Each structure stands twice: as structure tokens, then as C-alpha cells.
């Protein structure tokens, strides 16, 4: 830990939510435009969070906010680990902690809607986690280590060798951002049979925490896409942005599907294309230069 590292960490801590907030604002703006509306101001997510923080802290269970804090700090940790080029497998596990914290937070409120939402989100884990780990495996196969250093230092883009995993990751991104067609556990704006799913009983500061964590999560998830073309940061960032935009468009042209359907999709199509990709890497033995 030298000064540079600390500076970088602080930069991430402060910068990520700003980027995430703007990204979320852009999302809402673009969604509105796709729907032929004007939409909210760009900084609307910021206003929302500010408002939520100034509201009463209404809870059903005094400990429910603990879980969302865990969610937040672990999202931040996984983002920091990504930035500091840590072990990718480890990052995924840390990220799982965050996801689970949110699920358990939802469950802990005891509200029936939150519980049904959480159990659907658990099923979401079942569909995306294998893909994430296979992604990690692909990195290992390409670089000989799970540490991200090699990927970030490589001179050629990973996308060349992992196109199928890239496709799978786009779907994972869609699941993780809880965008249509995969907004079955909670949905940001669209109306849902589960009310607000996992977050039904969260309001005020607790919900603000979730929103802030979402900001970090946006950055983290697009960071995962960035890795596919980390050799050229500009293209990498562009790739992240394109993926993000793509998901916004998909969000607007699909209906919500069932988690059962998603599970099937992921265990049949996503897993298989990922495994095919992995198998290719094994057989060809290519290494990232």
C-alpha cells in the first residue's frame, strides 16, 4: 500500500458512485426517450438518494439495515479488488457475499413479497454464478493465473478468445442489473406482482444504501465487461458502454420472463456456450500475449 494505491482507492470510492449515478441517470433518460418521453433530469438518481437519506428510517426489523450495509461494503470491496487487479475468483466470491447480503436482507424483513423475491433472486444466483466462475476460469486459462494483472497487462484483447463467454456475460449483466426480461425478483420501475420484490420493506436511508450500492455495482459490472478488451482501455470502456446501452435497449423490447425460463436458458444455452468456449481454450492452449 503506497500513496498511489491509497489515492486510487479514494478515487474509486468517490468516483464510482458518481459514474454509477450518472449511468443510472442515463439509463432512465434513454429509457424515457425510447418510450417517447422526455424523462427525468440526468441527476435524478442523485436527487432520489438525497431524498431517501432525508426521510424517516422506517423499518420492520431493526437489523434489516445491517444487511444492506454489508451489501454496500462488499460491493465496494469487490470493485476495489477489481481495480487493484486481485484474484478474479476471489472477487466473484466477494461479490457473492454482496449479492447474498441483499437477498438475506430481503428475507430478513419477513415480508412475503420480499421473501418470494429473494427466493427468486437465489435462483438467479444459480443461473449466473457458474457463468461468472467459468469466466474466471477462462482468464486463468488465458493467462495462467487468476490474478487480473495479467489480463490488464496483456497487449491483445481477451474478447478474441472468449466471444462466447462474452455473450454469456452480457446476459449475466442483464440478470444482475435486474432489467427486463430478468426483472422478476425486483424491478426498478415496472410494476411487479411482487410489489418491489426484495426491497419491499426498505425505505428511507436503508433504501438509499441499496441505491448507492447499485451505483457501485453498475461500475463493477461494466468493469467485468471492460476486462474483455482491457488491452486498450478506451475500447474497453467503449465496450462496457455499448454493453450497457444494449441492455437498456433489451430492457425496452422484452417482456418479463419467469425465473424458471431464465434458469433453463442459463443452464442450457449460457453454460454450454461458456463450456464450449472453455473447451476451446483448453484444446488450443492459447495464451494471452
Amino acid at each position, binding site marked *: 500500500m503506497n500513496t498511489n494505491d491509497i489515492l486510487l482507492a479514494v478515487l474509486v470510492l468517490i468516483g464510482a458512485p458518481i459514474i454509477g449515478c450518472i449511468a443510472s441517470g442515463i439509463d*432512465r433518460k434513454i429509457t*424515457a426517450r425510447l*418510450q*417517447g*418521453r*422526455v*424523462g*427525468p*433530469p440526468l441527476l*435524478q438518481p442523485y*436527487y*432520489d438518494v*438525497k*431524498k*431517501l*437519506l*432525508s*426521510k*424517516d*428510517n*422506517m423499518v420492520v426489523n431493526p437489523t434489516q439495515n445491517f444487511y444492506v450495509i454489508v451489501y454496500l461494503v462488499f460491493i465496494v470491496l469487490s470493485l476495489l479488488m477489481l481495480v487493484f487487479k486481485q484474484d478474479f475468483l476471489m472477487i466473484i466470491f466477494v461479490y457473492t457475499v454482496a449479492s447474498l447480503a441483499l437477498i438475506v436482507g430481503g428475507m430478513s424483513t419477513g415480508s412475503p413479497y420480499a421473501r418470494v423475491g429473494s427466493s427468486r433472486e437465489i435462483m438467479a444466483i444459480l443461473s449466473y454464478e457458474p457463468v461468472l466462475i467459468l469466466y474466471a476460469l477462462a482468464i486463468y486459462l488465458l493467462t495462467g493465473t487468476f490474478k487480473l494483472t495479467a489480463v490488464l497487462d496483456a497487449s491483445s484483447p481477451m474478447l478474441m478468445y472468449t466471444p462466447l463467454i462474452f455473450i454469456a456475460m452480457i446476459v449475466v449483466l442483464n440478470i444482475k442489473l435486474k432489467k427486463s426480461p430478468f426483472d422478476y425478483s425486483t424491478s426498478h*420501475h415496472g*410494476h*411487479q406482482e411482487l*410489489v*418491489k420484490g426484495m*426491497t*419491499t*420493506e*426498505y*425505505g*428511507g436511508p436503508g*433504501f438509499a444504501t441499496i441505491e448507492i450500492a447499485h451505483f457501485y455495482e453498475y461500475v463493477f459490472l461494466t468493469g467485468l465487461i471492460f476486462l474483455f478488451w482491457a488491452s486498450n482501455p478506451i475500447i474497453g470502456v467503449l465496450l462496457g458502454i455499448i454493453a450497457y446501452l444494449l441492455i437498456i435497449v433489451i430492457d425496452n423490447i422484452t417482456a418479463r420472463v419467469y425465473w424458471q425460463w431464465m434458469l433453463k436458458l442459463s443452464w442450457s444455452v449460457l453454460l454450454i456456450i461458456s463450456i464450449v468456449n472453455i473447451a476451446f481454450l483448453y484444446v488450443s492452449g492459447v495464451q494471452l500475449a
Partner: protein
Amino acid sequence: MSLAKSPWIIHVNVNSCNGCDIEVVACLTPLYDAERFGVLNIGTPKQADIMVVTGSVNYKNVNVLKNIYNQIPDPKVVLAVGACASTGGIFHDCYNVVGGVDQVIPVDAYVPGCCPRPEAILDGVVAALSILENKKKGNIKGKEVKLKGKEVPSNA
């Protein structure tokens, strides 16, 4: 100004004929696009700021109204939309109608009409915003509305 920029509403339809409801929904649609003001129709009272009530109150939904009101964290504003919600409207002397929403919970602003135009509802939301700000500044809390007329829970 933080509250005024992000009013999240919860729409409670109590005894409405749908006329008002569909106009409330219409406010969110592209032509009127209430989201320009940051309005979101949020599902749960726990995250709402403005309670938009349409329709008069009847005996079955008194408790619903009170419960939802109590579950909105402060500061909160209640907006009564339509003649029914404001005064009971044409139904004010029906046997099963208690009256306007203000018979049950405190109402901060009213929107006239049967049914009100979406523009009028947007006016109401804008009016609610400043009330919201004032409540925050003055730290005015909504009183917990007690449930009257308890019904004995059977098979409890």
C-alpha cells in the same frame, strides 16, 4: 430541495370509479410524463412520499387507507384526486360511503374534477412538492392514524 426533486408516489385507489385512476396512470405516460419531475409510481408505501388517493372511502377500505398512510415514512403528503376523494363527490351520500378521504386521514391537497384532467393531477403533484418541502423544514410528522372499528380477527 431534495424532496421536491424526487417525489415518489403511491397510488391508492379506494372507491374510485376508475375515471380518476386511469387519469392518474395517464399522468405517467409519455404525453404527460410525470417522471420529468422525478415522479415514480412506486409500489410500496415504505418508499413513497406522496400518497395519491382516488375515490371516496367505504367501510371496507378505511383500514386499508389508514394502514398505507401509516406505512409511509415522514415527511409525507396526501393528495386527494377527484371529486370523490375530495368530498365524496356524487357518492357522498351512498350507504356504503364514509365520505371524502379527509374523513379518515389528513389530506394536504385536493384536485377537483370528475374526473380531473391529467394536467390537474400534475398541478396537484406540484402543489404537493412544496408542501413536502415545508413539512421537511418544519419537521412536521404525520400522526399515526389509529385504526378504529377493529374487526375481531377470527381463526387467529
